[in-house]
């Protein structure tokens, strides 16, 4: 069943592949970063077409927004130019090829794309979508329901991850001579 969705699907996938290869091959680091942003945009678009708007939303915000800014910040701090472009190295390529081949081998028994009989769609029964209307008293967004309630504990872990990352970044980059015991490592660098 090839329809317009398939066409969009193929087109976005092709663009994704092209972007990924470009990132791998482009010389300028900043350009690689920008292409990573593009990659995020594209994958978000594809996620959207795969009925995952929440993920698309997040991926766009994170991958294309925050991550790009962070990468550029780092690049500004470390110097723009990559000194030596890595030559093609056969060993990593071999590793990657083998890994990829194994994965492809693994796909052969997978339920096909969009197959309604896939275990993912058959189990648990009733599905989250069916249940959540009762459980959540009419909360429309099932993803939110699953995220915050059914798997709220995961999300708490996620919050903890973010908090950990914040703490980690401050720990790593705070000035050592900072005499202030409390918060804020960078306030005295005004001007």
């Amino acid at each position, binding site marked *: 069943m*090839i329809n317009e969705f398939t066409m969009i699907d193929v087109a976005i996938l092709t663009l*994704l*592949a092209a972007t990924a290869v470009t990132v791998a091959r482009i010389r300028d680091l900043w350009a690689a970063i920008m292409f990573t942003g593009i990659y995020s945009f594209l994958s978000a678009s594809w996620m959207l077409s795969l009925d995952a708007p929440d993920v698309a939303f997040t991926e766009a915000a994170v991958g294309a927004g925050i991550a790009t800014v962070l990468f550029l910040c780092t690049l500004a701090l470390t110097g723009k130019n990559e000194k030596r472009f890595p030559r093609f190295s056969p060993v*990593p390529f071999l590793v990657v090829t083998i890994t990829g081949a194994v*994965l492809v081998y693994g*796909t052969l028994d997978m339920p096909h794309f969009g197959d309604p009989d896939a275990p993912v769609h058959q189990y648990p029964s009733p599905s989250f979508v069916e249940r959540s209307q009762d459980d959540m008293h009419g909360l429309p967004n099932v*993803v939110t329901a699953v995220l915050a309630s059914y798997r709220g504990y995961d999300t708490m872990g996620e919050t903890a991850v973010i908090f950990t990352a914040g703490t*980690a*970044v401050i720990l790593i980059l705070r000035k050592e001579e900072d005499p202030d015991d409390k918060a804020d490592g960078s306030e005295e660098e005004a001007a």
Partner: protein
Amino acid sequence: MSLEQFLGLYNYWIVIFLMMTGFYIVISRGNLIRSIIGLNIFQTSVFLLYITMGKISGGTAPIIPPALAAAHSPHDEHTLDAHGEHALNGHSVDEPGAAAGEPIANGAAELAEHVEEIAEPVSAAVTIADGPIYSNPLPSVLMLTAIVVGIATTAVALALIVRIREDYGTIEEDEILAVDRRS
């Protein structure tokens, strides 16, 4: 390898290709920032893998439009499942051209009368063929978490790279090695 198989799996394969591109960037060991970029791409592609799993043909995003949600009453939880199902089934997204009113009315009437007799031909034609199926929300939820984990890792990695650059004066793998060897 049949065409059907190819069509059913090519999405996975491209995603695998993307993953491996990212993985290659990580392990080809050049610039540290580039490694992190590779890591980013690798992870993003894994997100794609998950999202592909959640997709169901002819499905739609697991956000139940408020109008439909309103049809649910929180009180009659007893029969709620059946109602919800049929209310959804009443509408067919993929047949926009058809005059929507009649079959829905039919279906709804049928349902209202004989919820149990769903197997009856008339209603069956409406319900089974193409109800709005919702894609699985669980992969989305997992990936929301994974995205957060990914950006957290990226942030920490970049912070480390800044420190390394300040201490070593370079972020190239081989130069760092050289500096280390000298000292």
